[in-house]
């Protein structure tokens, strides 16, 4: 059974992704920030990490970079709420969706999902990474 770690500061988002993936037959752990995510990876390295890109403190792009560095075997899916927040408010889409997701892809995310995504899209993305 493949292990998936979901990192998202939005608890409900992480929870529903866990439910969807468990239904699809994956073993899922959740974390609500990048540091907790790294701890979870250290305890039990998952096959796939699904991480939100825009998170307080350490954001998703940083997390992806660290994962690539330390755990080259782990596949990564980046998800983003779109829009923007905080000081990045100006030209929102350009920054969050384009710049951040582009940065995430550059850092090593193989799949990109924009919230709110469909269940089928999520499962299709994870199956592309783990086609067993």
């Amino acid at each position: 059974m493949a292990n998936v770690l979901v990192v998202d500061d939005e608890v409900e988002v992480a929870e529903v992704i866990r439910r969807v993936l468990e239904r699809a037959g994956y073993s899922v752990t959740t974390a609500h920030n990048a540091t907790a995510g790294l701890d979870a990876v250290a305890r039990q390295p998952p096959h796939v990490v699904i991480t939100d890109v825009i998170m307080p403190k350490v954001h998703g792009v940083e997390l992806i970079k660290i994962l690539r560095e330390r755990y080259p075997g782990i596949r990564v899916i980046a998800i983003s709420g779109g829009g923007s927040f905080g000081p990045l408010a100006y030209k929102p889409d350009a920054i969050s969706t384009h710049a951040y997701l582009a940065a995430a892809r550059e850092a090593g995310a193989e799949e990109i999902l924009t919230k709110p995504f469909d269940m089928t899209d999520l499962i299709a993305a994870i199956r592309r990474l783990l086609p067993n």
Partner: protein
Amino acid sequence: MERLVSSLRVRLIGVVLVILAALVPPLYLGISAIVREGYAERFVNSLRAYSRLVADELEALDERDFDQRAVALLDSAVLSGQVVFAEIRDGQRTLASSIATAPINVPARDDFHFGDQGDQTYFITHTLNRGDHAVLLRLGFDEVPTIERIAAAERSVLLVLAAFVAASIAVAVWLSWVIARPMVRLQEAAQRVASGDTDTQLHVRSSIREVQELNYHLEHMRRELVGTNVRLSQEIREREVSEQKRLDLERRLLHRERIATIGTLAGGVAHEFNNIMTPILLYSQLALESVPADSALAKDLTRVITAAHRARTLVTRILTFSREMDSQQPTVFPLRAPVEEALALLREIVPANIEIVFNAPAEALPVLGDASLVHQVVINLCTNAYEAMRRNGGRLAVTLAAVENPPESQVSPGCYHVLEVSDTGHGIEPAVLAHVFEPFFTTREVGEGTGLGLSVVHGIVRSMGGVITVHSAVGRGATFRVYLPVPTVQQQETARVASAAS
């Protein structure tokens, strides 16, 4: 002014009339008296000589036929035309000319003044020595011809004086006209100037120096007035232009701020909204899998999912809209251009107690992005700076520079083109300094600012791949530095091609 003119002329003529009234009657009386005296003296002298002659002849008469001869002598005297009365008294006897025209009762006196008694006759008495006794000779002379001559002479004097009076009045009238006319002209010209016709020169000919000088000074005043008018209207125009510029700037700032607000709200709402929509959509889809496909619950869940999809489309559209409102193709442009444009606008609104200093190297300092956004960054930073100095005044310095590996911890090493805005204002407290770039964070009163300014600046700088730093201490002013990466040759080429294509 019409009143002054009439009063001036009337006064001049009045003065002349008064002088004439005071002068002419005594003059007339004096001349008349001299004339009368002269005539009377001549008259009296000549008739005395005549009566002496008659007396001498009477003295020389013989005794015989004295009476006859005496009467004949008196008659001849009467016939000579001057004598109207002649008689001789010898004791109780009176010998008189029988042809005398005035056999009047002669008063006892003689040598009266000429013209006395109203009898038009002048009497002279001579005492003659006739041998042993004295005889009185009395002659009366006609005054009328002399009186008529005097009257004629007086009429002549009167005529001459009347001519003199008439001439004086004529001269006075002419003089008053000569003085008053140029003044009336000047007055009319001044009135034209006063009613707005400032272009007509004041040119009144006059031989009176005072009038000439008055004309000169009035003309000088008119030119001053014209100059002042020109200056004033120029000032008004300039003020209108700068007011227009200020309004335009305000409108543009407001527009920018509104777009920034829409962008911020849309972006922030979209992020939250999408996070909320995710569990709604996914839980609905999960639930849909758990119920029979033809159940009523499945239909309801399908409706929830459809609605969620519609919500997702709507958010995408809002994001696209807010992006299109202000998104431009990035171009490579010299940093100096929008900065100078913004400073030109700021100079219009920054009060005089704040000095604006601009320093920039000669190089172009190219940067990649949207020039109008850099314009907004400058406006925002400078507006904050001048707000900080509004009360006490100070110095607002805007500096452009090329910097390599800046000694600032937030800025990664590399080549940057830097925009620095520093002021000598009240500075920023450390607690505030940490939050200045956060949206809706403001130290101003409610209604004075949205608190978006610096977060917008931050967003713009980040969107251009740059970094903004702030250094400040309370009372020591503040310095904002915007580090914009030097565009690569490839970026410059791409931007050039893109701008050529569009």
